[in-house]
């Protein structure tokens, strides 16, 4: 989704756009939001129904911030809010013939907006039923392998298994895997050739895999 690119666009560009062309006739109505604003919207919608495109554009641009605030009250995600606003605008366009100018515009608008907001919330509810947010505490609490206690148990088990290896293999594993020396360092420290160390490590890992991999040994 291109929500990050889209988000600043409308909010920044819309506000001056909405004010500039409408400044002369809407100047006094802007500070007085409630009573006069509604009357204005009602008249604009009536002219829009008659095909007046300028009135329609002014109306849509005026109600967009209002719809955005309405949607943001219920929907947390910013890109979902913008999708909802667009959805509401599309619905308004589809059912604009159902508006009766004799009746107030506010309830008509809010009913349609609530409809679309509820739809979005339902969709979110459905999708979140199949998703689990992954947070740090979930990894340690709900996944048993990630639990620290379990880690300690399996570490002890591994150490015991290493102890039971033949001496050459045990030294090779200790130096190369537990102390993390390089092959050359390990060879210099123990006096065993690099090739023998490799063979011993390979055999030790194979044996450890057999010992730990047995079903009876698993916790």
């Amino acid at each position, binding site marked *: 989704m291109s929500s990050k690119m889209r988000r600043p666009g409308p909010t920044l560009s819309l506000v001056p756009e909405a004010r500039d062309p409408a400044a002369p006739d809407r100047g006094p109505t802007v500070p007085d939001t409630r009573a006069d604003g509604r009357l204005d919207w009602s008249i604009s919608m009536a002219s829009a129904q008659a095909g007046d495109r300028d009135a329609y554009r002014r109306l849509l641009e005026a109600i967009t911030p209002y719809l955005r605030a309405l949607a943001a009250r219920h929907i947390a995600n910013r890109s979902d809010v913008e999708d909802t606003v667009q959805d509401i605008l599309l619905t308004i*366009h589809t059912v604009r013939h*159902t508006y009766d100018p004799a009746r107030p515009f506010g309830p008509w608008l809010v009913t349609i907006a609530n409809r679309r907001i509820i739809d979005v919330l339902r969709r979110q509810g459905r999708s979140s039923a199949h998703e689990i947010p992954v947070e740090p505490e979930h990894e340690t609490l709900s996944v048993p392998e990630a639990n620290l206690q379990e880690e300690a148990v399996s570490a002890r088990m591994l150490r015991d298994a290493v102890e039971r290896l033949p001496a050459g293999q045990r030294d090779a594993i200790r130096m190369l895997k537990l102390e993390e020396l390089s092959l050359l360092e390990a060879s210099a420290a123990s006096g065993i050739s690099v090739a023998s160390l490799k063979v011993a490590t390979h055999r030790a890992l194979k044996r450890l895999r057999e010992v730990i991999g047995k079903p009876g040994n698993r916790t």
Partner: protein
Amino acid sequence: MTSTPDLIDSLVADAQPVRRLRPPAMRALCWLLFAALVLVLVAVGHGVRPDLMLKLRQPVFFAGVLAALTTGVLAAMASFMVSIPGRSRRWLLLPAPALAAWISTMAYGCLTDWVSIGPDGLSLGETARCFATLAVTSVPLSLLMLIMLRHVARLAPAPVAMTGSLAVAAMTAVALSLFHPLDATVLILLWNFGVAALFLAFSGLYGKRLFEWVAR
């Protein structure tokens, strides 16, 4: 996805003049006139039940038909009212008293004279004719209602579909009571409430999809 200003541009470019809907009460009246026309046509084509005059003098039968008719009228009004955004949802309760009256006349009929089988027994031919009346009455009424209320597809389709189908079911029940000699109480119950329940369940489940299909 387009940005919101782009969307507004395209909507404005598409803003043809639209014809406003007439007041919902008047549209409901149009639908009811059509329903009356359908009932009259069925009456002419099929003929009323032979003992209609006799039955209409029985208060329970008369009250039942009247209650069903009232339910149909009020449910039609309610669905046209609620289909307009911004109207109160309490309009949905409008048919409730008439519906209660309809149900109680049925229940009263069941309690006072339970006729398990009519004088001629259960005849399959009559049942088939009942089905014919059911289809001839309900299909055109449902279609007209769906077309008249297609704008509701993007609004709140389920409650509107349910009140609308209650209206259709009540009208169909009136037609069945007037045109078919249903004496067995079981059959009356079946044809009245079976139809209503069927329509309500169907519209509750598929109302949204039906409206979307018609509105497309």
